[in-house]
């Protein structure tokens, strides 16, 4: 299993994905957790090597942390090669390494404050904790399925 938390920890709530992944790393030492500023192409190899991947990111215009399953895809416009979407990364894994995880989740954490700050807003901090608990449950579910 691979957990990728990404965002800018100097931009307030934008760092929620990174904070969540840091919590997951403490609670699940067996799970590989990666914290990043943005999604980059070389993650494709690690993604191709795992059976379940979680992309955790801050997201505007949602009211609570939520998970959705994704499949390979591409951005509608030109893919950004300095950073990629989770769907594009899956495509990259599939095209380069001919393998993608059985399950790939994008987990959004509601975020609203993006000013210069290393702190999460109270609402996002609460949602980030919910996100971590959600990942706990999903990790448990996946572990049970794999037995």
């Amino acid at each position: 299993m691979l957990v990728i938390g990404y965002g800018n920890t100097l931009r307030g709530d934008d760092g929620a994905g990174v904070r969540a992944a840091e919590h997951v790393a403490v609670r699940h030492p067996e799970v590989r957790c990666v914290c990043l500023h943005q999604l980059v192409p070389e993650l494709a190899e690690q993604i191709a090597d795992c059976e379940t991947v979680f992309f955790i990111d801050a997201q505007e215009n949602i009211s609570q942390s939520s998970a959705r399953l994704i499949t390979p895809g591409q951005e509608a416009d030109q893919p950004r090669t300095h950073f990629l979407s989770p769907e594009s990364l899956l495509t990259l894994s599939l095209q380069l390494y001919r393998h993608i995880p059985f399950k790939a989740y994008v987990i959004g954490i509601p975020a609203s404050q993006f000013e210069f700050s290393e702190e999460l807003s109270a609402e996002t901090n609460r949602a980030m904790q919910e996100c971590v608990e959600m990942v706990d449950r999903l990790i448990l579910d996946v572990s049970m399925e794999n037995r």
Partner: protein
Amino acid sequence: MTRIEGHAKITIQLDDNNDVADARFHVNEFRGFEKFTEGRLLWEMPGITSRICGICPASHLLTSAKAGDDILAVEIPETAEKLRRLLTLAQWLQSHALSFFHLSAPDFLLGFDSNPATRNIFGLIAADKEFAKRGIRLRKFGQEIIEILGSRRIHTPWTVPGGVREPLDPAKKDVMLGWIPEAKETVGLALDAIKKIHKKFAKEIPEFGNFRSLLVGLVSKDGGLEYYDGFLRIMDGNGNTIADKLDPKKYFEYFGEAVEPWSYLKFPYYKPFDYPKGMYRVGPLARVNICDFIETPMAEEERKIFKKLGGNVGVVNNSFYYHYARCIEMLFAVEKIEMLLNDPAILGQNIRSMASINRTEGVGCTEAPRGVLFHHYHVNKDGVIQKANLVIATAQNNIAMNRTVRQIATHFIDGKKGKITEGILNRVEAGIRCYDPCLSCSTHALGQMPLHVELLNAGGEVLDEIRR
């Protein structure tokens, strides 16, 4: 603009005869890192300024730490310097690999006029999967060194004023050495590819930023290619060294910063020549041009071949050859990483000089992937930042990038048609990509990379525009 880092816009201005009169590369983002770091502690600065950019955080980290060394007035231990050098080279490698394999190779392998929907990394995979994969792995090698040294790939706080936080684990050294054969092979593929590209685009290359300018960069004490320390050297477009052994800490005596109302990106220039005649270029093209030699054997052989492109002048003035210079620097980085890892001093345990504030002003300077980078801080007696000035490589190429855009637009655009074709537009963009600009760094901007090009008639009316 696409396949660059940050926001930008290009306007192409026609004259009364509908010929291209001017073309401008606008940067329309602003972040203000210099302002909001005021009031923070010196020791926080490497961690904060590394957040300027997700692509070259290690360069800001190192330069900031060097400014801190200056304020502490310390000489860092030998091992710390070698580890910092290792980190600098890893940053070069991962950044150059991204620029060459993923941002520019789609143009070269698929063609400037190929379908823009597939002229990207996925199109590259379809055309040459192994090449694309190799590029990703080379970048991964650089990233892995950064991760090993700093425990995190991005925004690692491992480099600090006075040295580094942790010594190198011997087991990790072997992991890094294990990458070397593959990395050398991959850079060899890149060098083969770039030479084929030179032949393929032989007719177009002369229009890609082909002009004389000053070239600025660091060289080692004995004139070799330098990346972490050394002196500033300035060469003119005829290959004459017009200034040498300049102390980087006095950069503000040599360079001024002009501003234009149409861009947030400053326009640094060489003061003795004034603005805009003091235009200069930094980065791979400048570095490989100005040095007398490269200390690693394979890269030195390539440097000699590179210099022949300059003909009798002995200096390569065409910005298209940034790509070649970048490949040579990747080769140097791999060779030098191997040398550093095989140096027993790299495993030393003395890694940090401890001191308190001994000066209230300090300058750090390194060669970031895109060129020479300065961090200049003023602090109070407690180490609180009173003023910060960051002079970024991309900004230093600003005048030259504008000239490149103008040259390409003038050559390829027929204003009488009042339309810009996508292929021409892509050539204009490709001119900018030669410099691999990082607008996140240079304006300290944040965000995505929309394309916006406007074609204006003599009265300023928009004849055509393209957005992506």
